[in-house]
């Protein structure tokens, strides 16, 4: 199942790495800064950080149902991982939107006062 793994890898790369590549480029230290704690700026960087981490975590969690003996078609590698990855990415985007909103409002209050 090399081609399945390749496609899964492509999907994972496009959700977790590709957005970062567009914004951060090839600068390694930038990458390290964005993905370390409190290192990302509010804006695209924080969206990248949250969505990438959550899409990887989603794919990771997606592997859980594979060994269960339910004998369903969708338990094939890497279907659950892909679904997990996409769900993770989606939640990541939602979380980062909320994060942006909340943090931005906090900041504005700071500025006003």
């Amino acid at each position, binding site marked *: 199942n090399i081609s399945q793994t390749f496609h899964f890898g492509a999907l994972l790369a496009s959700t977790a790495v590709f957005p970062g590549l567009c914004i951060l480029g090839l600068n390694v230290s930038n990458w390290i800064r964005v993905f370390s704690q409190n290192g990302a*700026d509010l804006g695209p960087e924080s969206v990248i950080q949250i969505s990438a981490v959550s899409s990887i975590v989603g794919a990771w969690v997606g592997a859980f149902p*594979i060994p269960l003996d339910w004998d369903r078609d969708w338990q094939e590698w890497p279907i659950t991982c892909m679904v997990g990855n996409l769900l993770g990415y989606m939640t990541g985007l939602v979380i980062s939107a909320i994060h942006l909103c909340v943090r931005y409002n906090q*900041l504005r209050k*700071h500025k006003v006062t």
Partner: protein
Amino acid sequence: MAAWSFWIFTTAVIWFAIFLTYFMPVKKEFIGISTPETVLEQSGSLVPGVSPLKRHYNKTVLVLIDALRADFLFSPDTPMSMTKKLVSQNLALVAKAHTPTVTLPRIKALMTGSVPGFVDVILNFGSTKYEGDNILAQMSRAGRRVVFFGDDTWIKLFSDHFTRYEGTTSFFVTDYTEVDNNVTRHLPLELSAGDFDLLILHYLGLDHIGHLAGPNSPLVPPKLREMDEVIDTVYRSLTKLQGEGLPNLLIVCGDHGMSDQGSHGGASYSETRVPLAFLSTQHRSSTGGVVESEVDQIDLVPTLSELLGLPIPSNNLGHLLMDMVQEQGAEEQLASLLRNTIQLLNLLREDQPGADSEVRGFFHSTCELHSKWLSLTPQERSSAMAHQIQIKYNEVITMATSTITKKLTTYDLPALITCVIGLWTAAILLLLSQQSPVRWVVMVHVISTLYLVGHLTQFQSVWPFSGSGYLISVASLMLVLSTIALQAKKTMKDQVLEWMRSSFYGGGSLCGGFLIAGTLLHTVSLLSSSYVEEEHQTWYFLSTTIHILHLMSVILTMNTNQHPCNASFNSSTSNHFLRSCPKSDVESDQGSHSDKIRQEVLNTAVLLLAARLMRSWNQTGNKWLHLPDIVDWLILADNRILLSVLVAVSLLLILVLQSRRLTWVQTILSATGLFCVFWSRASTGALFLPFVPQMDRGILPARLSFLCVFLVLVSQFLPGQTSRPSVGHMDICLSAWTVLHVLLMRPHNTVLVAFMTVQQSVLCGCKLVLSPSAAAVFYVWMGRAAFFSQGNSNSIATVDVGAGYVGQEDYNAFPVAFLLGLATYAGPIYWFMAFLAKLNTLNPSHRDLHQVYFTVAVTCLLSMVVYAAFVVTERYHLFVWTVFLPKLLYLGMDLVIYYLLSVILVLKYYLWCE
């Protein structure tokens, strides 16, 4: 402080041992051997005038084909066409074999008629001589000649009873032609001489094909055709040998079936259903053919005994096959049934005194009816009455067997619950012992444990709750629990927080958190039987993830150390979206910094690559077991040279990596040891080495290798050998262990040891961002992954029994069990020793050592206590014999191994002085 933890851990191990003995009670065997005289006397006193034991067949041949499952013979398009034709004129049944479907218990069941308990599988790895009553013993007592050719398990069990025999060792599963030819080549001589009463032929080839390629492989039909020819030849010669007025009998059966992956040991339909065909040279009066109804495999035993005119073995639980004795007429049939019933009632009385009283009354009324029937003249005897008596006898038999077998699956629930309470108390106490154990609580716990253990082992059952001592000690256990509960309120939170903080330190918070989460996840995963069957996936997954997370932590830590200002980079100050790092800061350290990162990435890549290769080395588990793996390809006969080269290269690699921490004397010793390993493999023919004679078992080189291991261990205490100060005793021990490890592995798994050595030396060189106790969990995970990559699983079937006999002339219980344990847990042992070696370089404080000991004990106990409680609630689950119990045994063995290994930590704690 470590002592308190140590004592609590010890009580946990004891509790678990008691728990296991209660979960799989050792079956009592009825020692007596029944004699024709007592059988005659007993049956005669109950039913006067009953016909005595009578031989119905002159010569009998038993063709036992390993792993012949029912559909190989009975499917419409079977290659065994000649046998099928014979079967249609005679009698064949689908028989159900009892679990465990492994050859040795099956052979025992086929000859004794008993249902082996699970514990038999464990106790009988060594297959010692079987002393109990069985058909072969009865044969030799009656002065009949038994001839045997085939699997040498029989010879280990019954060699006393054979007139002639030759065994074929199933040393190489890859060989499926020679093993069978070695049996068949005796046939012309034996069948023409015809001086046997019972000839047993055990063919192994089909089973080997199953293990190699599965039931659907193209190798199976030719093998079945070969077996078909053998059966046909034997049948035709038996027809010629007919004489002395008695017909001859050919029995064809399988010992166990074959799953769709080609293995066996479980309880699935295809593993337990085997054909049982009786081919008589005398044509049957009634039409036979394939009987659809299922019988038990052990039903062969009373049937065969009766047909041969022998007393039924005293431990038999089988039920006479009426279809087969039908031929002999009603009088004989009823007499046989009577003898079967008497034997079963005797067994029942022996097994559960008093339990037979309710059956007795019914039995006596049947006997009276039987005598009444016998007293009639042959003309007056109605077949309806005979049929009625037959039904009544069958009822008695069913009642007796169900009472006996029910006992086999009942559990002593109070005892089990006591054990679980004891285990939980120990586990919780251990959690509390980390900082300030309340000493009197521990004392009370230890004392009540000792008392209860004495009580449980002495009385075998706690049901009468005999004496106040039991109640007092249970009450004190409860007291301990409640004290803990009170204590826990105050301290538990602090304890857990403290423990988490300690594993979080040094920037490894990501890893530390994941190590805790992973341990918990694994514990929860054990509650699902498919995760237990596929546990290797869990460990491969977790260990791969921890490598990646470790790399991330290392890079992030480096970064924060590099740029302390980064911590203050938070979003509150920034409005612009893109921020470049302050250039001046970066450029100065850029070179060394990116070099370090590159080095770390490289290290992790090596670790992951080795892990990936190890993972596909042996397929294991259940669901994907049938997929081809690297080993399947390597052990093909064509690839022997390649395998030899690969093994040689890995041995060299191991030696080179090791020699860095050894003095030259030790290096030479381990080089000799490793060479002897290769030599020993070459002399068994598994590997290729020029100028070495093949076909002995490689005992001498293996022993030389043992000697080298011992010398390496001793050499560290000689003066002048401690030249390198950075090398600790643990490093030398690790090197010695590696040589032993290689010796105990199958040749193809030697490469795995090389991978592990590579991983170990990478980990040894890099700086872990983990606290010592987190590192302990990390190495334990590596050990678990290595355990499965060597081909082990949570099923008993995967234990490599051959490893127990390395360097052994013959079977001795202790060394074989010891070596077997070491070989099975070689991976975990290797990684724990690697951890101890690594721990030395971290310069642990007293507190760290205690912390490490505590962590190891907790990680072992956590899954154990949860699983024990779970298994008790699910004790009537369908999978209890195939999944839960083997897993419990593996957990227990795991606990013992880590318990013994962590004693080193306690010793270090007390001997450590600075």
